[in-house]
C-alpha cells in the first residue's frame, strides 16, 4: 500500500465518512420536515436533545451510547409534543412554538451541565461543532489485512452508529415512501385511509431525534441543522417530484460533506494559510453555497430564470406597444410614422429605437430612413393584440364590474398576457 493512500485511510477516510453518513441521513429526513413546513424542527430537536443527554447521564451515571441515544430520543419526542402543545394552546404559529421550546430546553441543558454534570466530560461547545477530525483509524500497511476483524474493531464506535442510522433511515424511507408521501401531502386523507398521520409524524420525529444524536457526537449540531435543511431545499428548487427530490438531496448532502471536508483540509493552504478549518463548518458552508447556486440558477424556480422570463415579457410588451401604435396610425391614414414621433409615444428615443430594432428582428416592422411602417406579419400581430385589448376591456366591464373609463388602463396591461378571456 502506498504511503499516500495509507495516510488517507488513517487520517481522512473516517472523518469524511462520518460527515457523509451524517449528511446523508439528515439530508434525506430533512426533506419531510421542509415539505411539512417544519424546517425549524431539526433545529429544535438538535438543541433540545442536550438536556435529554444530561438528564440521562445524571440518572444512570454512564455515557454509554445506548443510554445517550435513549435520553436524546426521549427529549426529541418531548420536544415534538411540547411544540405541538404550545402551538395548539398558546395559539401561536409553529415557528414561535419551536423557537420557544428549543431555546428554553437548550438553556436548561447548559444549566444542567454547569450545575449537575460538571465533573464529567460533557462539553456544550463540542455538542455544537463536533470533532470529526479526531476520528482516526489504525490501519495495517498491508491491503490484505484491511478487513480483518481486528482492523474493523479499530473503527471508532461513532462510525458504526452513523452507519446503522443511515441504513435505518434508508430502509425507513424506502419501505414507507408512499406512506410518507401521503401523510406529508394530505394528512387527513392519509388518516381516513388508515395511515395514521399523527403516528407517522412521531415516527419521523423520533428518527430525526435519533439521527441528530447519532450525528452530533461525530460532526456537531451545526452540521446536523445545516444538513437537515440545505440539501432538501436545494433539491426542492431543482425537482418537481418527491422521488427525485430525495435523490438530489442525497447527492447534494454527500457532495457537500466530501467536498466540504477537502475544502476545510486543503482550502486554507490554497489561499496561503498554514492551518485547516473545522471540517463540520466547511461542510455546512459548502451546503449553503450549493443552495445559493441552486437558488440562482435552478432551471424552473431559479432567480435567473425568473429575471429572464420578466425580461422576455418586457420585450414582448415593448414590441407590441410599438406595432399597436403603428397600426393605430395606419388606421388613421398614416402608413408610416417618423421615429421621432414614436419616441414620444414610447417614453424616449432610446426605448423607441430599441423597440424598432427588436421588432425588425422578428420582421414585424420595416424601416426606410427615419420612417417606420408595419410589415404584413406585424399588421397581423397588431390586430391580434388589439383584439385581445377589446376582449379584456369588455370582460372587465361586463364580468369584473370595472367602470368603463377604468377598464382601458387595465386592459392595456392584460392584452400582453396569455390566455385571453374566453380562450
Amino acid at each position, binding site marked *: 500500500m502506498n504511503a499516500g493512500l495509507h495516510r488517507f485511510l488513517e487520517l481522512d477516510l473516517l472523518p469524511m465518512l462520518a460527515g457523509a453518513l451524517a449528511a446523508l441521513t439528515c439530508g434525506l429526513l430533512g426533506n419531510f420536515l421542509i415539505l411539512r413546513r417544519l424546517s425549524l424542527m431539526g433545529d429544535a430537536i438538535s438543541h433540545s436533545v442536550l438536556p435529554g443527554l444530561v438528564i440521562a447521564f445524571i440518572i444512570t451515571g454512564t455515557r454509554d451510547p445506548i443510554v445517550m441515544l435513549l435520553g436524546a430520543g426521549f427529549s426529541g419526542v418531548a420536544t415534538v409534543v411540547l411544540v405541538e402543545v404550545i402551538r395548539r394552546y398558546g395559539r401561536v404559529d409553529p415557528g414561535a412554538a419551536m423557537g420557544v421550546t428549543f431555546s428554553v430546553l437548550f438553556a436548561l441543558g447548559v444549566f444542567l451541565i454547569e450545575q449537575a454534570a460538571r465533573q464529567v466530560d460533557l462539553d456544550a461547545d463540542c455538542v455544537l461543532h463536533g470533532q470529526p477530525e479526531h476520528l482516526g483509524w489504525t490501519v495495517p500497511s498491508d491491503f490484505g489485512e484491511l478487513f480483518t476483524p481486528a482492523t474493523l474493531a479499530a473503527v471508532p464506535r461513532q462510525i458504526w452508529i452513523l452507519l446503522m442510522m443511515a441504513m435505518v433511515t434508508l430502509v425507513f424511507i424506502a419501505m*414507507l415512501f408512499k*406512506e410518507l408521501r401521503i401523510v406529508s*401531502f*394530505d394528512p387527513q*386523507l392519509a388518516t*381516513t*385511509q388508515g*395511515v395514521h398521520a399523527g403516528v407517522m409524524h412521531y415516527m419521523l420525529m423520533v428518527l430525526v431525534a435519533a439521527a441528530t444524536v447519532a450525528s452530533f457526537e461525530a460532526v456537531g449540531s451545526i452540521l446536523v441543522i445545516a444538513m437537515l435543511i440545505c440539501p432538501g431545499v436545494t433539491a426542492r428548487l431543482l425537482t*418537481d417530484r418527491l422521488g427525485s427530490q430525495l435523490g438530489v438531496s442525497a447527492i447534494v448532502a454527500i457532495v457537500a460533506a466530501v467536498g466540504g471536508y477537502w475544502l476545510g483540509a486543503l482550502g486554507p493552504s490554497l489561499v496561503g494559510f498554514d492551518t485547516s478549518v473545522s471540517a463540520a463548518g466547511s461542510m455546512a458552508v459548502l451546503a449553503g453555497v450549493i443552495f445559493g447556486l441552486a437558488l440562482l440558477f435552478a432551471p424552473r424556480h431559479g432567480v435567473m430564470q425568473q429575471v429572464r422570463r420578466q425580461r422576455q415579457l418586457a420585450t414582448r410588451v415593448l414590441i407590441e406597444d410599438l406595432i399597436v401604435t403603428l397600426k393605430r396610425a395606419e388606421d388613421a391614414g398614416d402608413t408610416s410614422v417618423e421615429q421621432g414621433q414614436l419616441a414620444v409615444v414610447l417614453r424616449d428615443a432610446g426605448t423607441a429605437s430599441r423597440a424598432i430594432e427588436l421588432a425588425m428582428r422578428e420582421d414585424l416592422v420595416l424601416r426606410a430612413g427615419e420612417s417606420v411602417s408595419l410589415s404584413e406579419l406585424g399588421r397581423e400581430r397588431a390586430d391580434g393584440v388589439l383584439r385581445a385589448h377589446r376582449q379584456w376591456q369588455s370582460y372587465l366591464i361586463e364580468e369584473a364590474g370595472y367602470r368603463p373609463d377604468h377598464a382601458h388602463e387595465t386592459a392595456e396591461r392584460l392584452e400582453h398576457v396569455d390566455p385571453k378571456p374566453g380562450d
Partner: protein
Amino acid sequence: MKADQVAVGGDPITVQARSVLDARPEHSADSPVSIHAMTVAYRRRPVLWDIDFDAPQQALVAIVGPNGAGKSTMIKACLGLVPMASGRVEFWGMPLRQARGRIGYVPQRESVDWEFPVSALDVVCMGRYRKIGWFRPVSRSHKMAAKECLDRVGMAEYADRQISQLSGGQQQRVFLARALAQEADLYFMDEPFAGVDASTERAIVEVLRELQQQGKSVICVHHDLATVGEYFDHALLLNMRVVASGPVAETVTQKNLHKTYGGRLTLLSEASEAVARSGV
C-alpha cells in the same frame, strides 16, 4: 328510518324530547352512514350539538348551512379526523374501523399545499394506497386504474403535470379523480364546487350522477343554495344542530332556510325565545 328524516325543530318541546338518548329510534343497518347523538366541541366550545342523521341509500346528500355551522366538522367527525365529545357513527351498521375501505373522502382544496412535489397522477394514486397496502410500491396496474380515474374527470392529458401547474378547477378534478380511485361505496366531499369554473362544475355533477347510478352515496358540503335542488336529492340543513333533513323539495323551504341562516337567529335562540314567549 323515515321518522328520523322528518324535520326537527319549531316546537321547543320536541327539541327537548329528542335530546333524551333513549327516546331515539334505532338506526338502520342499511344506511351508508348513520350518525347518532353526535356532539363535537373545540376547546370546550361546542360546534355541533346532538346531531342525528341517517343517510338514505344511493342518495346525493347536500349539507347546507352558514359559515361556522359545523358542516366540515361534521364530515371530519364522521371520518374520525376530529374527536367526538359524544355520540356514535356507523357505516352500514359497522364502526369506522371496519368500514374504512368503503369510504372515500375529498377534503377542501385549500387543505393541502399545491406546491408539493407530486404529479397529478401521483395524487390520484394516493386514493389507492389502502388497496395497495403498507410497504408496497404503487404497481403498474394501480397506476393504470388511477389514470382511468383521471380520464373520467377529463384530466388524462394532465397526468404528468406537477400539481402547482394546474388551475383551481383542475386541482379539484384531480381530487375527485383520487376519490374515484378509492372505489368507495360512500363519499364525503367538502365543498367540491368551491371556486371552480363552469366546466369543472359540470364534470363534477356528472361524476356525482355516475356514482349514484352505480349505487353509491355521496355526502357533500355545499354552499350554493341556488343549485342544491338541481344537483342533490337530499339535504341536511345544519347550524350547529340539524335544522331539517330529507328530500330537497321538502327540506329546503323558506321556513327552514330562515331557521338555518335567518337574521343570525340560531335554532337554539329561537327555541329559547319561544319558551320565553309561552311563559314556560
